[in-house]
Every structure is written in structure tokens, then in C-alpha cells.
């Protein structure tokens, strides 16, 4: 589904991703963990080219993302993204937030679009908030709407960039629950997260990143209970 080969990314002289290679299978749920500054978010943002790649190859569903000739807008329709800071559109209602991209990009019929949007809202448990503006919602509710908004485009892959890091602790659970449900539905997911409990429970595979490399990867059981690399051990001993 996703192949990353020798991905490198530098900002000026600062090399954030040194050499990343990995493959993510269809329907796989991959959690990316690691200390801050390890390049986790940058890695995620390179996958849909929110950051342009310095060198290396990214291939999603047979489309070479890093090829300059690729229609990146088209590719992004298939790659949903959820941000740490939600980034809902504040001038639109919840329903309008969800319906906007399908309306303008997929030219979706209004009735069908609204029906789909309401289904998604119901799925994240916020059907009654359809006509509210984002500033009237709590952080957890905003993030659930943001997930619904990304799902409205029927993406094949969902990228989550620290989706619970900006939330008050009591709201983390509701967002993780929605993400768990998604994982069980079989959407390919890549989740950059500090929620080790979530990674352990939901991930098929965990990537531990440090210093611009994937230092270690494996099933949650391997990474959390028997990490081989000493940097993984050091990190986990701090966060667990």
C-alpha cells in the first residue's frame, strides 16, 4: 500500500529525516512513536507532501508521490489527514466542514453528500452538533469532526499527526475510541502518537523513531515488552 524508500528531508542544513525506508500494508495500523524532534511528524507530512521531500521515494497505492509529475491534489483525496490542532474551518458549520471537499472536489450531489456527512457525524457521535460552529465545540469534539471531515473523501489511508496531544486529558479517550473503531473497520492508518496504551492495543506494528531514523520496528508486544535497541529501551523507560 505504502512504500517508503530512503526518504530524506532537510530544512536548510538541519537534516530531520536521514534515511527512512518502510512498507505499510493495506489495512495495517501503524503507530509511530519516539521522542520529540525525532522526525515522526515530518515523516507523516512527507507522505502526503505537506512537506516536500529532499530525496528518496514515496509510493502510495501505486502512485509515486515524490514524482513531480504526480497530481498531488488527486493523491491527497485518497490520503486523509488529522492534525494535532484539528484545523477545522472556523467560518463553516460542522456539517459544512465535512461536506466542503466532497462538494467542490468530487462534485458530489448535495443530498448524497449531506446523507454521507450525517452518517459520519453519527459515527463519531456528534450528529446533534451538525449546525454548530467549531468554536462552540470542545477540543475532543472538534477532533472527532476533523476525523469525520477526512473520512468524507473516502480515503484509502488515514494519517494522524499526534491527534490527542492538544487535548485536555479527559477528552483523549473519546478521540482514541473513534480511532479504534476505524482501525477495526480496516482502514489503513498511520498514527504518530504519544499514547502508548493506544499503540499497544490497536497497532499491528509500531515504529520507533529517533534522530531521523526508524530505529526499531515490530509488533507492539515486541517493541513494548522486549525492545532490542537500547534507545528504544531508554525511551520506553521514560514514557511507560
Amino acid at each position, binding site marked *: 500500500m505504502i512504500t517508503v524508500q530512503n526518504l530524506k528531508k532537510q530544512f536548510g542544513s538541519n537534516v530531520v529525516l536521514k534515511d527512512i525506508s518502510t512498507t505499510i500494508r493495506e489495512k495495517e495500523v501503524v503507530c509511530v512513536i519516539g521522542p520529540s524532534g525525532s522526525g515522526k511528524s515530518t515523516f507523516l507530512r512527507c507522505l502526503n507532501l*505537506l512537506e516536500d521531500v529532499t530525496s528518496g521515494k514515496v509510493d502510495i497505492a501505486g502512485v509515486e508521490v515524490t514524482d513531480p509529475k504526480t497530481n498531488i*491534489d488527486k493523491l*491527497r483525496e485518497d490520503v486523509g*489527514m488529522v*492534525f494535532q*490542532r484539528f*484545523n477545522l474551518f472556523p467560518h463553516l458549520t460542522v456539517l459544512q466542514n465535512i461536506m466542503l*471537499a466532497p462538494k467542490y*472536489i468530487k462534485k458530489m450531489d448535495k443530498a448524497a453528500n449531506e446523507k454521507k456527512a450525517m452518517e459520519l457525524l453519527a459515527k463519531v457521535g456528534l450528529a446533534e452538533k451538525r449546525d454548530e460552529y467549531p*468554536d462552540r465545540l470542545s477540543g475532543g469534539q472538534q477532533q472527532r469532526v476533523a476525523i469525520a471531515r477526512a473520512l468524507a473523501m473516502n480515503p484509502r489511508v488515514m494519517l494522524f499527526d499526534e491527534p490527542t496531544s492538544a487535548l485536555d486529558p479527559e477528552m483523549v479517550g473519546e478521540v482514541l475510541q473513534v480511532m479504534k473503531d476505524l482501525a477495526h473497520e480496516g482502514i489503513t492508518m498511520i498514527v504518530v502518537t504519544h499514547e502508548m496504551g493506544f499503540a499497544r492495543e490497536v497497532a499491528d506494528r509500531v515504529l520507533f523513531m529517533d534522530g531521523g531514523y526508524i530505529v526499531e520496528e515490530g509488533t507492539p508486544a515486541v517493541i513494548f515488552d522486549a525492545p532490542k535497541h537500547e534507545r528504544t529501551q531508554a525511551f520506553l523507560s521514560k514514557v511507560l
Partner: protein
Amino acid sequence: MSDTLQIMSDALPILFEGLLITLKIAAISLVIAFVIGLAAGLMSTARSRIIRGLAGIYVDIIRGTPLLVQVFFIYFGLPEFFDTRIDPEVAGIVAVSLNAGAYIAEVVRAGINSVDKGQVEAARSLGMNRFYTMRLIVLPQALRRMIPALVNQFIISIKDTALLSVIGIRELTQSGEIIISTNFRSFEIWGMVGVFYFLLILPLSRLSLLLERRLNLR
């Protein structure tokens, strides 16, 4: 002083005609200026350095020269160079439009830059191209924030049309001068001209406040 009321009522129809011309020139100029300002403001946020540079040069030239000089250049300078004539009202409208357009471009640029980068990323990650992102996400938010600065510029430009009296347009200020040249009653006439401008501007200030309150927070 006993004939003050008579003087004023005599002046009223002439000043009112002038007011209409001021209103016409201001309205046309501000519409054009808004289009120019929006275009130049968008250009100044473009990726291409050349496009940004062009917008920058335009803004710098206008901001770096007095409106009066711009008016003279457009009304006297350009027609002389091209050996032609230009209608004073047209010249006036062109001058005020270009002038206000440059300041509005800066307002637009600041408004666009004030929109959180995450908004653009969210839109782009949904598959929206640059055009849709600008039109559906960035500009609607930017325009709301621009309203106070925009109205401020509108007010300044409306008052700037008074300068057009120097090229013989019979707008409000010129009408006042014409009356005074026959009756020598500066106090009454300039007082009335001032009140006319004030009454023209006041509703605009009020409208701005109203808009701001209605669009607040969204």
C-alpha cells in the same frame, strides 16, 4: 451675519450636486480599488518571486508618492506624453483607484497572512487545489478580519477625492470653492462642506462596526 441662513440655503443645491459627484467618483473608485487591491494582495502572497515583485513595486510606487502628484501625472503628464486628452473625472477615478488599490493590497496581504497555516494544510490535505483553498478557506476568513482596515481605507479615499478639485472636477470641495469665489463666505460654506463629508462618512463607520459585530469570532 443676519443673512447666514440665506447664504446657506442658496448654497445647498450646488453643494448637493457636488456631493453627488463626490459620491459617484468615490463609489466607482472604491469598487475598482477593491478589485485592484484584491488582485495585488493575492499577487503579493504568490509563490512566484516575479509576481510578488510586481505587486511590491506597484505598492511601493503608490505609497512613495503623494496622491496629488499621482493626480497631476495622470491628468496632465500622461495625456501630454501620448498627445491626447483625458476627461478629468476619468483621470480622477483612475488616480484614486490606483492609490486606494495599493493600500488595500497591503490590507489584503496582511489579512491573508493572518490566517493560520494549519487552515491551508487542512484544505490541501483534503485534496483542494490552491485556488479552492484560497477561495473557500483563506479569503473568507481573511476578508472578515480585513473589514475594519478596509473601511478605514475607504473613508480615507472618500476624503481624498477632495484633492480632485485641483483638476477642475466639480465635486463637493470644488463646489464649495466656486460658491465662495462669488460670495466670499468661507465660514458658512466650508462649514457646510465639512458637514456634508461628515454625513457621508458617518454611516460607513457605523456599518463597519455593525459588520464587525455580526461577523465576530467566525
